[in-house]
């Protein structure tokens, strides 16, 4: 941790980060970052992780059979007098 006269120290800056990042503000303009290489690197790490996450876990379709399973379960739950409408739909 380092103190920088005239600005907040690293602990104070990092305590503010959740709100700062979450607000969508341009963090690179923050006064503390202009004088603190350590926190610049720290923030870069977090931004790298967030950016990498966007490439993670491609959105995928469930199997075609899943809808048939769901329909079957719905039919099992439905009162007998509504079974026909499910079958005909």
């Amino acid at each position, binding site marked *: *941790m380092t103190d920088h006269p005239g600005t907040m120290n690293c602990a104070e800056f990092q305590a503010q980060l959740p709100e700062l990042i979450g607000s969508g503000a341009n963090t690179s303009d923050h006064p503390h970052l202009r004088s603190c290489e350590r926190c610049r*690197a720290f923030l870069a790490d977090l931004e790298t992780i967030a950016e990498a996450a966007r490439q*993670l876990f*491609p959105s995928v379709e469930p199997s075609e059979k899943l809808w048939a399973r769901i329909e079957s379960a719905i039919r099992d*739950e439905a009162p007998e007098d509504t079974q026909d409408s499910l079958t005909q739909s």
Partner: protein
Amino acid sequence: MSNPPTQVCNPVPSSPDGARGNRPNSYTPAAPPDPGEVQILARAQAGDHHAFAQLYALHKRRIYSLCLRMVGNIAEAEDLTQEAFLQLHRKISTFRGDSAFSTWLHRLAINVVLMQLRKKGLSLISLDEAMEPAPEEGPGRSFGAPDLTLTGAIDRLALERAVADLPAGYRLIFILHDVEGFEHNEIAAMLDCSIGNSKSQLHKARLKLREALRAISQPEARP
């Protein structure tokens, strides 16, 4: 019984899972409701099974992907998706439009996932606990320091493994925000927490990931 329609009358531009900005895996949950979907929803609420099938076709990818990202197992994710849509079928008449339908459906699916995690005996007991992990789970050692800096590109597999190893509450927030692209106000609505809490938990999740990735990339630096 019918096959679920693969398309609705007014699909969201690009695709139902279309990207927001440059996020290939996310969509625009905050977008105004599609008039076509509003009609479908109303019909489904009135008991129209074909309309319910259309809702399934619209939302299956998002819900299944969320389940899969949370449990990491295809069969289990399909079971959870099935249960989420069964719950939707049971409860759809109670949707009053206080929030976006997709937010409401995600909240329902999240509860199904969390119930499953509880059954499996994971540390996660409730959503409240998910949002307030035990202090020892917090990223206390993650205070920014030069020797923790990640260098270069992050290995995708390492990140996936690190995400999978996150406590469920952190994993959920991270997936909803950083992977799926939901905003904090939407996550707060889904998880019934404050926006500040959502921001705070996401930050802690990223810190834990940073710790984990650093441990993988610089194992000699660990005690």
